[in-house]
């Protein structure tokens, strides 16, 4: 049987399924049928079983993980916690509820302490879930550790779960919820994990089922035949060979260069990106400098970070996006008011314009870092919707010494008037995730509308085409820096629509490089036309696939 989903990347994996148990719901606060002494026995028994299990896993893991697990075991048997549980049981609560409440109280206290202690709150939550699961005789939630390589099947992964993943054990990842921009998808792309997300029927998979996770074809094959397994194994070997191939600059079949750049979230990933063949940075997100901060970092602090990044790319292009706060990533000092629809609210350039000093400081730090290094610094503003905003940003950049000031095209309005915007801006870079969200009017964080969050939709492609045409007319660069550029076939379509460079997670570079090299500029245009003419996202992808294989087949049989 085949289960449909959205593949991330081009990988294939074969293995047996281990399911991740869902997080438990909060135990209901109802009166217990047992007396408090009996409930206390139940609670203490489960607490000590969980402590033993954590200690056992600690001994198995060794090293730093052992310390964390042993500390968790001590939390489970903590006398202060047990006193608190017993006190709550005296009020007639069930053991499940009392344990849940006691852990929650300590968690809130740790969160209130902030910083390092706040991070330990997740450890406490994990212990709480384990104890409640044991009381309810349910499997413990969280990432399983069966002790052998496996295909992880989950509803979706929380960021805390993804941090726990042992990548040497996880062969592939299948989720029933979550779209191509979910945390799981982003993690899979970043770490090159073979993944199929949003596969609704994956809910039927059980522990031990043998599956093929085929990301390239957007499906999961259950009960594969020996032939299917052999075919998949062969593809895994081919892909490994391709990754080992020498790194060359991105180009089409006729040699037309299409620079392949990296999306980075901090200066730490720079060396790895260069190793994987990034010819520069197409999107450097600066939020990491500001998150977890109550006030904006100083010009000097920022300048140090930017200098570190730019030094890793001498002579190459580095496109930095100024602070993109709001919506899913609010900042205390920038986004003070609660908004009903944060994605449509005071975010990106709108928020910066509102707090201009933050933008001025950031541009000042960037200009200073540029002057101190040999990289080619470009700076762009997020969430541009009007020519007026474009002019505001480029004027400020010119005043503060930034040479190349451009815009991100994420709103349909910016795409539709890209000609007028590019008269003012030096370049455009299309953020396909947000452009898709705003074009389809579908919240990218909402699983229930994830099916609409597909950059293959002809409406999105048409807007990309508008920007590409406006750039070509003016000889101004149009980059792509959304997840779409990491899809090897969609990358060809985007180039056909006028994109002059592609930026992606470094792990996607090898596949995209191999894909671009197969087609000439005319091929890319023909494939793009086929996709544009389709009626929906799935049809566009299919049409592009057909057009592409027609071209490669014709070439293979040509004399």
């Amino acid at each position, binding site marked *: 049987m085949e289960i449909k989903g959205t593949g991330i990347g081009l990988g294939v994996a074969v293995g047996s399924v281990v399911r991740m148990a869902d997080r438990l719901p909060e135990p209901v606060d109802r009166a217990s049928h047992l007396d408090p002494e009996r409930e206390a026995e139940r609670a203490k028994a489960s607490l000590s079983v969980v402590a033993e299990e954590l200690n056992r896993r600690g001994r198995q893991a060794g090293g730093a993980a052992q*310390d964390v697990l*042993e*500390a968790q075991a*001590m*939390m489970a048997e*903590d006398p*202060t916690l047990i006193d608190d549980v017993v006190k709550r049981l005296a009020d007639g609560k069930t053991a499940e509820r009392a344990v849940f409440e006691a852990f929650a109280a300590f968690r809130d206290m740790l969160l209130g*302490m902030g910083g*390092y202690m706040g991070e330990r709150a997740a450890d406490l939550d994990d212990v709480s879930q384990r104890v409640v699961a044991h009381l309810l005789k349910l499997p413990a939630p969280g990432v399983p550790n069966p002790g052998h390589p496996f295909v992880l099947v989950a509803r979706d992964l929380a960021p805390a779960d993804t941090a726990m993943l042992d990548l040497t054990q996880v062969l592939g990842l299948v989720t029933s919820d979550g779209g191509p921009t979910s945390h799981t998808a982003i993690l899979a792309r970043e770490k090159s994990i073979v993944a199929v997300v949003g596969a609704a029927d994956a809910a039927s998979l059980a522990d031990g089922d043998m599956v093929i996770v085929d990301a390239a074809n957007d499906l999961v094959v259950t009960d594969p035949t020996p032939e299917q397994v052999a075919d998949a194994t062969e593809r895994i070997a081919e892909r490994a060979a391709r990754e080992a191939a020498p790194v060359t600059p991105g180009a089409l079949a006729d040699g037309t260069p299409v620079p392949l750049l990296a999306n980075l979230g901090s200066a730490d990933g720079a060396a790895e990106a260069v190793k994987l063949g990034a010819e520069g940075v197409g999107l450097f997100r600066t939020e990491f400098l500001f998150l977890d901060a109550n006030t904006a970092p100083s010009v000097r602090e920022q300048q140090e970070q930017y200098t570190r990044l730019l030094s890793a790319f001498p002579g190459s292009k580095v496109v930095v996006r100024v602070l993109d706060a709001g919506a899913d990533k609010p900042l205390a000092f920038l986004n003070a008011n609660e908004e009903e629809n944060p994605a449509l609210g005071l975010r990106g350039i709108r928020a910066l314009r509102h707090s201009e000093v933050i933008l001025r400081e950031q541009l000042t730090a960037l200009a200073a870092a540029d002057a101190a290094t040999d990289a080619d610094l470009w700076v762009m503003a997020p969430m541009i919707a009007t020519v007026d905003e474009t002019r505001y940003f480029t004027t400020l950049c010119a005043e503060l010494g930034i040479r190349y000031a451009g815009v991100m095209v994420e709103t349909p309005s910016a795409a539709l008037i890209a000609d007028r915007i590019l008269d003012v801006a030096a370049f455009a870079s299309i953020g396909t995730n947000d452009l898709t969200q705003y074009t389809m009017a579908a919240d990218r964080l909402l699983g229930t509308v994830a099916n609409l969050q597909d950059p293959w939709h002809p409406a999105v492609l048409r807007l990309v085409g508008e920007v590409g045409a406006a750039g070509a007319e003016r000889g101004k660069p149009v980059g792509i820096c959304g997840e779409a550029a990491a899809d090897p076939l969609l990358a060809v379509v985007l180039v056909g629509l006028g994109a002059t460079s592609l930026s992606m997670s470094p792990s996607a570079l090898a596949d995209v490089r191999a894909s671009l090299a197969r087609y000439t500029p005319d091929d890319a245009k023909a494939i793009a036309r086929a996709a544009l003419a389709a009626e929906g996202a799935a049809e566009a992808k299919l049409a592009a696939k057909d057009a592409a294989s027609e071209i490669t087949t014709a070439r293979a049989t040509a004399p």
Partner: protein
Amino acid sequence: MVERTVRIGSTHGLHARPAKLFTQAAAASGSSVTISKAGGTPVNAASILGVISQGIDFGDEVTLVVDGGDEQRVLDELVELLSTDHDE
């Protein structure tokens, strides 16, 4: 009952690993042990949650009170643990 005041030696204070080592030792000592920051309420030193909730930092002065068992030896051992830097 014996008591002593000691300065915390761990660079990151009494968090995580140092707190774990300390509470493990206190729990295994066979004595009843409390720990308090200057001016704070004493908490059970065998409770990791109690200890980390004190937010004890590097250089803070804390008072240990040991009651029952081999009081003097237990106190010496715990003082030694608190003044050592476990975060190197």
